[in-house]
């Protein structure tokens, strides 16, 4: 069979909310296709919903970063050296395979159950209310990202982990550097090392003075080593605030640009649960990857993926796959059955904090538009700065206005 080969991962978006048109064209031709990597490796690009599920659900693929050929945009012009490859840090279970992954993730799973997260609803509602009251002090116009979308998940995850919100400055800039595709690899790794240092200090403090928080609970189990605990905490901290923040920011921009859909959300508040799933499907903010490497030869959808081949999954394309979402998957439709989307991933690495994220978004979007029913964009939509330069897509800022 002749296979479609792309010279590089298409990244140029034509519109703020849609995946690059080139990726959609690739999916229409072949849901599993070949992709050239910056280091010369010819790996795979998977753009179909069913096929992404199959790869992420298969134990024949590893997520050990040392095994991956790097697709990171940082390397599109900068050849990575073998020594640059990121090692799987102890405790960084996202980048580990079973049995290490299983052992570490299990230590945290009990903290993120549906029941536990539902119990946080009232508390999260209060954080959202306080932040909306803060937004109102801005006299009719503000940057929604800075004053609402970023602070809400930051406050929530800091409190859950037992990190003082006032300490945020110490890791916020470094988190941005770590996730920015404009950072060189060395800059990103230096930022990562500084966040690790902050976490090591935090773990030492929590051992001395335990609090009523997830890190103290984790340490109390006596299961993880200090190094594992600090990397686990680091992962939760980064995962917990960049992701939801970008969904709140980009999701609000999306709703403001789809007034008919926003009207449904305002008129029928019960739609919010499904609206969150549909916004996640439609926006798919993890816009490059996840990546996996075959540990052994494996056949996916009739294609033989050889041991050592690296596979890049394209979540935004998969979440618009008409085979999974018939009708018009390119349209935002808050009433569409959107469950089964891959925005939280699939397989054993599926987002651990997804039930927390759902509650933050349901309450966040719900209350934002109840309290600010006439919220509107305060600039031309073309002027909203998009995070095309970041590993997690979204908007850098969202100037909004309202009648105060």
């Amino acid at each position: 069979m002749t296979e479609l080969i792309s010279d590089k991962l298409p990244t140029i978006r034509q519109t703020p909310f849609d995946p690059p048109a080139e990726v959609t064209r690739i999916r229409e031709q072949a849901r599993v296709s070949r992709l050239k990597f910056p280091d010369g490796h010819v790996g795979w690009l998977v753009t179909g919903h069913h096929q992404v599920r199959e790869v992420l659900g298969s134990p024949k693929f590893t997520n050990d970063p040392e095994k991956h050929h790097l697709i990171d945009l940082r390397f599109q012009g900068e050849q990575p050296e073998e020594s640059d490859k990121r090692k799987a840090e102890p405790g960084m279970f996202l980048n580990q395979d079973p049995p290490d992954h299983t052992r570490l993730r299990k230590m945290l799973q009990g903290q993120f159950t549906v029941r536990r997260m539902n119990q946080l609803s009232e508390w999260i509602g209060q954080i959202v209310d306080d932040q909306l009251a803060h937004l109102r002090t801005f006299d009719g116009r503000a940057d929604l990202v800075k004053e609402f979308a970023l602070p809400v998940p930051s406050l929530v995850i800091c409190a859950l982990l037992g990190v003082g919100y006032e300490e945020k400055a110490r890791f916020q800039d470094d988190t941005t550097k770590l996730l920015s595709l404009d950072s060189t690899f060395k800059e990103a790794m230096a930022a990562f090392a500084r966040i690790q240092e902050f976490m090591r200090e935090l773990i030492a403090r929590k051992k001395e003075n335990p609090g009523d928080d997830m890190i103290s609970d984790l340490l109390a189990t006596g299961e993880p080593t200090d190094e594992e605990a600090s990397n686990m905490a680091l992962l939760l901290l980064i995962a917990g605030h960049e992701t939801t923040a970008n969904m709140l920011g980009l999701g609000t921009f999306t709703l403001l640009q789809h007034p008919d859909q926003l009207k449904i959300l305002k008129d029928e508040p019960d739609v919010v649960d499904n609206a969150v799933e549909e916004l996640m499907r439609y926006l798919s903010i993890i816009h490059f990857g996840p990546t996996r490497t075959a540990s052994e030869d494996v056949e996916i959808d009739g294609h033989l993926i050889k041991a050592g081949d690296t596979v890049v999954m394209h979540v935004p394309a998969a979440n618009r796959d008409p085979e999974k979402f018939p009708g018009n998957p390119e349209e935002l439709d808050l009433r569409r059955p959107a469950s089964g989307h891959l925005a939280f991933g699939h397989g054993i690495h599926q987002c651990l904090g997804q039930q927390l994220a759902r509650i933050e978004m349901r309450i966040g979007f719900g209350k934002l538009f109840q309290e600010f029913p006439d919220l509107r964009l305060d600039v031309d939509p073309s002027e909203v700065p998009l995070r095309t330069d970041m590993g997690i897509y979204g908007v850098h800022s969202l100037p909004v206005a309202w009648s105060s």
Partner: protein
Amino acid sequence: MKISVDQTKCCGSGMCVLTDPDLFDQSEEDGTVLLLVEHPDAEHEATAKEAAGLCPAGAITVS
């Protein structure tokens, strides 16, 4: 219809509880799946199937 769960595969995503809390729960200790109803009535058959399809770890089967 019969539902089976494999706790060794479960990764505690909570998708089953989110889909149908009448059929599934999660352990307080490590978040793994607890099956509440082995033989769902007709009213819950669709959600049992949906939960099996959504489970990221393939830990739920219906037969």
